[in-house]
């Protein structure tokens, strides 16, 4: 049994396997399938200051080896989260991390401040990369100035571990990563979904209600891996890698590319127990290759 624990800033993870926001609910949806305490962390659904109804149906289109979604950050708002959901999840014995989104730097900061007050939430993941909302979301994540403005505002309001989730829909993701690092982010996670489209040829119409959606699943993995490697070389803060991970081998690739931890997203829909299998697979690989500690392979390429 190799040592699997890693650190993201002040946050200590028992293993590098976390779940990606928007694919794992609040964790409790999966407790029949896995021991949630066996994960390194659970990143719960995108939460905003005010409740959001999200976009109209259809919000999803299946693609070869993946899917498009345009859910649009449907959630009941941070107050509902603090009052009704937090009590249900606070005792889950892993890092419960809240993904935070907003439509202005002030919004993000206010939402983050509310979550700062919750003892059992040790970190937030700042979503400056949602491609499915008109107001805010990815608008902030595609320029260095926009990304900096949000991180700067949140950094003043939030005192625990701050992970910033980056958009791949940019020319140079390393440049965005460096600007959020400069504003005090403790870590960056990448990639969020890639903007895409699907068309129903019989109806001669776009499938998704807002026309476009975010692509996820195994089809995005090579793009994600390349970007994780680029960013890991560009910043000193730890990188959390995600994008199409569905096997232990996929996870090992991200770790070798330079990710300190990984998130599993869309694969949870195909196998609700995939996270634990990936964790066990990483451990078996390390044992089989005589590695005592996962750090021996992080960034080894």
């Amino acid at each position: 049994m190799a040592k699997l624990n890693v650190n993201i800033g002040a946050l200590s993870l028992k293993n590098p396997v976390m779940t990606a926001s928007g694919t794992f609910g609040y964790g409790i949806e999966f407790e029949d399938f896995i021991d949630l305490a066996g994960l390194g962390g659970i990143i719960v659904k995108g939460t905003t200051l005010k409740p959001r109804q999200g976009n109209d149906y259809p919000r999803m289109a299946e693609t070869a080896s993946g899917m498009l979604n345009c859910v649009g950050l449907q959630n009941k708002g941070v107050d509902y989260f603090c009052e009704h959901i937090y009590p249900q999840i606070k005792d889950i014995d892993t890092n419960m991390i809240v993904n935070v989104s907003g439509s202005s730097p002030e919004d993000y900061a206010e939402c983050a401040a509310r979550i700062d007050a919750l003892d059992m939430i040790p970190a937030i993941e700042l979503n400056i990369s949602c491609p499915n909302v008109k107001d805010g979301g990815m608008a902030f994540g595609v320029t260095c100035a926009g990304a900096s403005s949000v991180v700067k505002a949140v950094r003043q309001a939030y005192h625990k571990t701050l992970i910033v989730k980056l958009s791949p829909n940019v020319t140079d993701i390393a440049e965005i990563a460096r600007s959020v690092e400069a504003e005090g982010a403790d870590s960056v996670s990448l990639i969020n979904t890639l903007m895409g489209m699907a068309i129903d040829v019989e109806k001669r119409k776009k499938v998704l209600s807002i026309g476009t959606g975010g692509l996820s699943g195994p089809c995005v993995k090579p793009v994600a891996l390349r970007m994780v490697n680029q960013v890991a070389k560009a910043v000193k803060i730890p990188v959390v890698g995600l994008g199409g991970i569905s096997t232990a081998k996929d996870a090992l690739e991200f770790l070798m590319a330079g990710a300190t931890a990984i998130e599993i997203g869309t694969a949870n829909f195909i196998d609700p127990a995939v996270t634990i299998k990936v964790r066990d697979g990483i451990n078996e690989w390390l044992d089989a290759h005589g590695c005592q500690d996962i750090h021996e392979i992080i960034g080894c390429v």
Partner: protein
Amino acid sequence: MKKHILDLSVKAVERLSDKHVLLRLTDDKPLPEMLPGQFVEVRVDGSSSTFLRRPISINFVDYSANELWLMVAMVGDGTRKLGDLQPGDTLNCVLPLGNGFTIANSQKPLAKSLLVGGGVGVAPLLYLGEVLQQQGCEVTFLLGGRGAKDLLELSLFNRYGRVCVTTEDGAMGEKGFVTNHSVLAESFDKIFTCGPTPMMKAVARYANEKGIDCEASLENMMACGLGACLCCVEKTTEGNLCVCKDGPVFNIKRLLWQN
């Protein structure tokens, strides 16, 4: 109700029509409890264009034979692959999912209910009919199709209640849509419906006019099946709700179907 991931074994594959198959699945261990109206997310192996699981409603559970029946309409590559399964093959299933129909009420069991289905939407009504009949409810099935070949499992439905049929071409039963059938002149204390949305909306209008309690089982496009991804939402009086977790069965009073 605990959910499971099970590798079920295909015991038999019956062709019900040129577009429908019945998969009879079993397991070494006793199958978990499942309710009428709940569904299964099945993994489709060997189809390069199919990525997500396919939600299939529970057609019947035969606990004595330890069998789960899934009726599959072969509409795309994924469901056609399910139609190619052979006895002895394995099907990976996540089950049971969703809420199911509202039936258990020991204070006030249903006396006379109408179960209205169309196309593959008849599937969950068989298991529902069996459970209602066991509770002492008088069950009437009203099943519609374009033609006689679209009417599936009629002999099985006959076991659990009276079967009324409509076909659009008049080849079997009364000619027209289910909402034209003469049995609707009778009174019922509850209606359950599953099928194409225009049919369910017409049934809901009828139920509203008559003041009859009515539940409809919806079939929106799903990804996770667990209420995690929020892709399959339906607009309701309580905002967007997940068909997979808050449904698939909704009382029509909660749906915004008036328009």
